[in-house]
């Protein structure tokens, strides 16, 4: 189905992480919340192949449980904010005029603030919880999608096949979804894979500040930032969650590339 074998590698990696996230309670060697201060920062050994963190908890176990939070937050934020951003970008680029003017001013305003600061403010208003972190990240996450899609729509909408579609009597919505979107989706996919990594990190920052998951809850981002403090003494604490994030992002990139080729009939040869 896909020409590029890396696409399959990406799919396998994603599947692997989803399975481990689902089966964490059974396959994790230890309770991820168990604190064992005697074994604080113990390096990897045969029984605990990833070693122990600041609290002496088993890193492998926390990583397995952490996949649940990181993947759920990452995927839900990117999917929902992506859909919102695509729709707003389509409308803005296609209709132009005052719709475009207002939407793009909102985008400018949101981009003028450091993203994380706005997210912190939002969660502070909504009240700290993981759900509110997701909401805050969605509230900001649509911005780059909308900008990107708007620009692409403007460049595509004057092409003759779009004019031809309009002269078939189709509704504007249909022209946007059936004719414009497939021609710009590849750049959106690339943007989405970038955003995924950013969202996983942002969630950790917010959780680290006590605005997201309760302290001690395993999430990859949180583990990474805890490990930062001891990176010289115990590099394994940050290396393993870092590797996990990198692998997932890479996997999504591979899948994104594959999808892009698949969606382009010029590169999708049977």
């Amino acid at each position: 189905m896909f020409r590029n074998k890396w696409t399959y590698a990406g799919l396998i990696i994603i599947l692997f992480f989803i399975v481990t996230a689902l089966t964490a309670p059974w396959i994790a060697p230890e309770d991820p919340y168990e604190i064992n201060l005697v074994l604080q920062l113990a390096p990897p050994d045969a029984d605990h192949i990833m070693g122990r963190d600041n609290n002496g908890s088993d890193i492998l176990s926390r990583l397995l449980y952490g996949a649940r939070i990181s993947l759920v937050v990452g995927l839900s934020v990117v999917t929902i904010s992506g859909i919102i951003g695509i729709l707003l970008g389509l409308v803005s680029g296609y209709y132009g005029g005052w719709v475009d003017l207002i939407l793009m001013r909102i985008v400018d305003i949101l981009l003028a603030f450091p993203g994380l600061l706005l997210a912190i403010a939002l969660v502070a208003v909504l009240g700290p919880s993981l759900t509110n972190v997701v909401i805050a990240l969605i509230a900001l996450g649509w911005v780059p999608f909308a900008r990107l899609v708007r620009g692409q729509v403007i460049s595509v909408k004057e092409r003759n096949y779009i004019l031809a579609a309009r002269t078939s009597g189709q509704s504007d919505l249909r022209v946007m979804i059936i004719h414009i979107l497939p021609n710009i989706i590849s750049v959106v996919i690339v943007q989405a894979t970038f955003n995924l990594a950013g969202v996983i990190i942002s969630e950790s920052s917010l959780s680290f500040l006590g605005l997201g998951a309760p302290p001690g809850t395993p999430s990859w981002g949180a583990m990474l930032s805890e490990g930062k403090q001891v990176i010289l003494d115990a590099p394994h604490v940050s290396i393993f969650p870092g590797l996990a994030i990198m692998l997932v992002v890479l996997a999504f990139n591979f899948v994104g590339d594959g999808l892009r080729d698949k969606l382009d009939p010029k590169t999708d040869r049977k």
Partner: protein
Amino acid sequence: MNTQPDILCKLNGIVKHYPILGGVLKRETGKVSVLNGIDYEIERGSITGLVGESGCGKSTLAKLLLKLEDPTAGEMIFDGRVVKKLSGSNRKQFYRQVQMVFQDPYSSLNPRMKIKNIIGEMIRIQGVGWEEEVDRVRSILRQVELDSDVLERYPHEFSGGQRQRIAIARALIVRPKLLIADEPVSALDLSLQAKTLTLLKGLKEQFDLTIFLISHDLKKVAKFCDRVAVMYLGRIVESMPGDRLLNHAEHPYTRALINSIPSGDPSKRKARNKVIKGEVPSPINLPSGCAFHSRCEKRLPKCDKSIPQLKQTSEADHQLACFLMDE
């Protein structure tokens, strides 16, 4: 017998200006006057040609006829009814009657769609069932002389000539009354141009079409069209039967266009003095009076003061907007 011509589409004083916006508040600081009062009638069953240099408003007129844009002023009467702004239901209704073939066959077909969908969706959105759709797509492909094995393929697999026939099939499957063709063959090789035009002429008979052909190729227009309108800076300056174009045109601009055509005969290389000087002036600052006076060799004193109206000449069906005819 009724001698009154049967008019399919009538344009009344069509004006199209685009505002130039400037400053932070996007205020109008000027305007581009693309169409400056077009009165024209397209006769049912005719092939009407429109010629002129690029930048004279040909393509904008096509967009207005297609209702892809609305005029600043003036109205269009199609099949006896005034065409208003399109919305929901009357949009579908309108595009069953008016269709278009674009110049560039490489950008007019959606690269992400199979041919069967490109053509089929035109009637699918009218609620035609699946089986009927496939039947009609196959039959229209036969009529434009393409095999039905093209159905499952994508546009990039075809040559320019084949793509243009696909585009014609897409337009004709809804059985429109008016087909607007904007330079339909100018992107094709010479040998294909003639073939495609012949195909189009044949289809016109089969489908009872009226064709509005926009072109810069005067020889093709003269041969192919029943009537020809010549446009300069958003006005029609001359209109005549196609067979009169090359030898009986009277407007100095039409004459200049004809003199610019390469003769195609090495023994008749043209003398330099016959070539028209200068370029089309900017539609932002229209010349006063007759827009052509700045390039006209037969200019009269009044030409830069008042605008000549399109008037009937002594010849039947021949209209001219030039002060020289009164002299």
